[in-house]
């Protein structure tokens, strides 16, 4: 049994992705190579006045430097302090935690559906699939946001050779409107193909994708977010209701759930 131990790691690289988005590389982290797409690390906020850790999906792994990347948007007290960290600063992380995404079948088409800051685990998932030999032509990357500044790391997505489909609510990039619109057209046009959806984003988007996928009878998984004190399944604070009754812990039973499993 692998014991999960919190570790002090160093911020070894930081990139300002504009519009309050940041990418930071943290390492050396002994468990870096064990991180799977969909899993998260629980990060102690550098501001001493913030009690609980904050969960961040792993966005990529650098096996040579034993580092992981997380991408976040400065939003509240915790992330504001996190955004102020500089190269060389130390930070305590716990992980990797949670259930990762399942692999798509070799003959399937993987359809990533990202919304806003729900993007990082899907970037990691797409990158890992391509690295492991999955044909990038079989990966479609739908990515929605308010405006073009919310669609970050575009060159990285394009470099993978996947089909990239952005949509913005203000029309500044891609189709104007919600990402579910082009997604639905795609699902309708490919009704006969074996598709597998992977979604991560705001609650409204997840709910729409969950309904859309079930209407179109497409299987897949959604990665959920919830206020999460412990991250290791012991506080029962982050539960979501299941379709079959009862609750599941987002941190421990998820954050990745099958489409239709959670009553969104």
């Amino acid at each position, binding site marked *: 049994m692998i014991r999960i*131990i919190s570790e002090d790691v160093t911020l070894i690289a930081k990139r300002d992705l504009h519009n309050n988005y940041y990418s930071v590389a943290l390492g050396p982290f002994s468990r870096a190579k064990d991180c799977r797409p969909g899993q998260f690390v629980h990060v102690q906020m550098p501001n001493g*006045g913030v009690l609980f850790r904050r969960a961040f999906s792993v966005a990529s792994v650098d096996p040579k430097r034993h580092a992981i990347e997380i991408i976040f948007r400065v939003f509240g007290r915790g992330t504001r302090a996190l955004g102020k960290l500089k190269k060389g600063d130390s930070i305590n992380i716990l992980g990797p935690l949670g259930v990762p995404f399942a692999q798509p079948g070799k003959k399937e088409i993987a359809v990533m559906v990202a919304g806003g800051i729900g993007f990082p685990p899907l970037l990691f998932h797409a990158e890992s699939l391509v690295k492991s030999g999955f044909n990038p032509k079989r990966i479609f990357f739908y990515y929605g946001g308010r405006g073009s500044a919310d669609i970050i790391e575009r060159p990285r997505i394009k470099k993978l050779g996947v089909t990239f489909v952005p949509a913005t609510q203000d029309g500044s990039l891609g189709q104007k409107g919600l990402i579910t619109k082009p997604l639905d057209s795609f699902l309708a046009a490919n009704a006969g193909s074996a598709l597998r959806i992977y979604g991560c984003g705001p609650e409204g988007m997840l709910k729409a994708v969950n309904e859309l996928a079930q209407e179109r009878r497409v299987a897949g998984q959604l990665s959920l977010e919830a206020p999460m*004190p412990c991250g290791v399944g012991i506080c029962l604070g982050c*539960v979501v209701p299941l379709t079959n009754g009862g609750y599941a812990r987002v941190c421990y039973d998820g954050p990745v759930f099958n489409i239709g499993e959670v009553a969104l």
Partner: protein
Amino acid sequence: MTVDLRVNIAGVEFANPIMTASGCCGYGDELATIFPLSKLGALVTKSITQNPRLGHKPPRVAEATMSMLNAIGLANVGIDAFVTDKIPFLNKQKTKIIVNVAGWSIEDYTSVCARLNDIPRVDMVELNFSCPNVESGLEFSSDATQMERAVRAVKNVFSRPIVAKLSPNVTNIVDIAKGAEQGGADAVSLINSLIGTAIDIETWRPRLTNNTGGLTGPAVKPIALAMVNKVHNQCRLPIIGIGGIRTADDVVEFLLCGATAVQVGTALFVEPSAPVTIAKGLADYLKRKKISSVSQLVGKVVRH
């Protein structure tokens, strides 16, 4: 110098005074992936009720200033599933097991505790009296007579030591502690969570679906310390101190105020391996102070 971290409460010997607080580590299985449970003085389980409970609707937790509000709603598997599914795992753990029991009537407590009496692995029960008594309309935790009756009823069905967990939401916690003592409790643990709330100023709604919740975490420690000391001064029962403990220094404060052992709760959610660090820090403190046994600290606070 070797130091002795063992403590004894009602004839039960604990390897060290660090326990988990109820509701903060489930039934131990998740925590065992973080550290060997043998590092604990005792594992205190989540509250067990007669029937399984799903708990309250989310959001169940909110963060407040250096504290946590929770309204989990006693989500638990119920006594039947606890005995069949959780006891086999606990049987293999090399630590003392204290099962926390909750209910709404005396019958709830006695029926669960009678079942636990047949399981020798259960070293103690801790009675969570934070729920209103549906029969009397009074809370066990805020009425000394109710407390006495409930503890006495459990005493009749459970042959090993009983810990009464005390609520801080009372006029005088000493009265309730004395009620527990009268009823035959072997120890008291305090404090349970304080009642609190937090409001979302955009929606004007409480941040917990249950509207209010239990406040725990570092912010409550001074309140807990004062109450532990008050009970220690006026009641003879051994005390298990609870409330905002994060570090070995915090534990020393509780022991000096009169606690024989302590429980770590909210800190587990920040650092799940906290009990291990705390136990080590406590040994280091004793070495530095040249004190051979942790029990020598109990109640030694020097009042002004």
